[in-house]
C-alpha cells in the first residue's frame, strides 16, 4: 500500500459504512411500520373478541399498507445488493445516467435529513464509461456529500452527465447557500484528488456557478489496472 491507496481504502470503508448505516436505518423504519400495522391488526382482533365488529375496509387498508412497506423494503434491499456488488470488479462498464440515479437513491435519506432533494436528467443516449465502479460511486458520493453539507435546506441538487468521444463529465449543480466560513480550498481535497488520480480524471468546484464538474476518460486506458501512480 502507498499513502494514496491508504486514503482511498479508508475513505472507501467510510463510504460503505455511511451508506450501509443509512440503508439499515431505512429498513428499521420499514420494520417499525410493519410492526405497528401488525399490532393494529392484533388490536382489532382483540376488540372483535370483545364484540366490536370488524371493519373489512379498514382491514383491507391495513393489509395494503403492510404490502406497500414490504415492497419498499424490497427496493431498499435490492439497492443494497447492487451497491454491495459494485466492489466485485475493479473494472467494468458503467452507464452514467443509471449510476447518477442510483447514487441519488442511495443518498436520498441523507438528503432528506438535510431537507434537500435531487433531480437527475439522464442523457438522451446512454453514456458508457469503463472504470472502477465502486471508486466512481465513491467519488460521486464525495461530491454529493460535499454539496449536501454546504447547501442550505430547501434546495435541489441537479445531476447531469455529458460526453464527447474521449471524455465524459458529471455535473452537480444547484450548490447554494455556502457556509460563512466556507473555504474553496476544501474541495477537491486530499481524498478527492487521490480518487480522481486513480480514475484518471479531475474534479473542479465552480463556486460562482454553484456546481461541481467531474471529468473522466471514457476508458481508463492510461491506468489499465486503475492503480495509483507509483503503485
Amino acid at each position, binding site marked *: 500500500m502507498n499513502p494514496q491507496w491508504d486514503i482511498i481504502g479508508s475513505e472507501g470503508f467510510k463510504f460503505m459504512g455511511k451508506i450501509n*448505516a443509512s440503508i*439499515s*436505518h431505512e429498513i*428499521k*423504519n420499514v*420494520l*417499525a*411500520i410493519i*410492526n*405497528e*400495522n401488525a*399490532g*393494529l391488526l392484533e*388490536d382489532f382482533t382483540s*376488540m372483535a373478541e370483545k364484540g366490536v365488529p370488524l371493519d373489512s375496509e379498514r382491514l383491507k387498508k391495513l393489509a395494503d*399498507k403492510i404490502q406497500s*412497506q414490504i415492497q419498499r423494503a424490497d427496493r431498499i434491499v435490492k439497492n443494497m445488493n447492487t451497491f454491495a456488488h459494485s466492489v466485485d470488479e475493479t473494472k467494468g462498464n458503467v452507464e452514467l445516467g443509471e449510476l447518477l440515479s442510483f447514487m441519488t437513491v442511495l443518498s436520498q435519506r441523507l438528503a*432528506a*435529513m*438535510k*431537507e434537500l432533494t435531487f433531480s437527475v436528467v439522464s442523457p438522451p443516449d446512454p453514456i458508457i464509461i469503463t472504470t472502477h465502479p465502486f471508486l466512481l460511486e465513491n467519488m460521486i458520493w464525495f461530491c454529493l456529500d460535499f454539496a449536501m453539507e454546504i447547501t442550505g*435546506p430547501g434546495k435541489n441538487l441537479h445531476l447531469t452527465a455529458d460526453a464527447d468521444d474521449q471524455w465524459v463529465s458529471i455535473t452537480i449543480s444547484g450548490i447554494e447557500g455556502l457556509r460563512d466560513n466556507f473555504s474553496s480550498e476544501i474541495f477537491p481535497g486530499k481524498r478527492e484528488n487521490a480518487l480522481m488520480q486513480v480514475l484518471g480524471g479531475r474534479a473542479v468546484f465552480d463556486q460562482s456557478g454553484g456546481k461541481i464538474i467531474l471529468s473522466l476518460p471514457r476508458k481508463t486506458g492510461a491506468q489499465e489496472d486503475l492503480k495509483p501512480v507509483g503503485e
Partner: protein
Amino acid sequence: MRVLLIDDEKELVSTLAERLSFRGIDADWTTSGKEALEKLATTSYDIAVLDIKMPRIGGIELKRMISRQYPHMKFIFMTGHGSEEDFKIGSEEAGAEYYLVKPVDIEELTQKLKQIMSQQGGLQ
C-alpha cells in the same frame, strides 16, 4: 394526559397514535419538529414522544426547544438504532428508562406513559 408523537415516518406515528388511543391514551401526532412547535402553540400536551433522527430539527434539539417553552412537559425518545451515542444523549436528556428502540413495543410505551402520568400526579 395528552401525548404528542413526533416522527418523520407518517405511517408509523399515525398508527402508534391510534394504538395508544385503544389503550386509553389521548395521542396526537406530527411528522416534523416545526409542525410539533405549531401544535404546541395551540394545544396543551403533557408528554412528547420523539424520534431522535428527524430532518431539520432532530429529536434532541426539539426536546430542548420544547423544554424551554413548556417546562412541565416530559419526554420519551424513540430511535431506529440503539447506537451508543444516541443512547448517551437520549439518556441524558430524558433518562435511560425513557429511551426506546424501534420497533417500539406498544405495551412498553403505554406503561412508560402511564408511569410518567402517575409520577406527575395523574395528569388527565
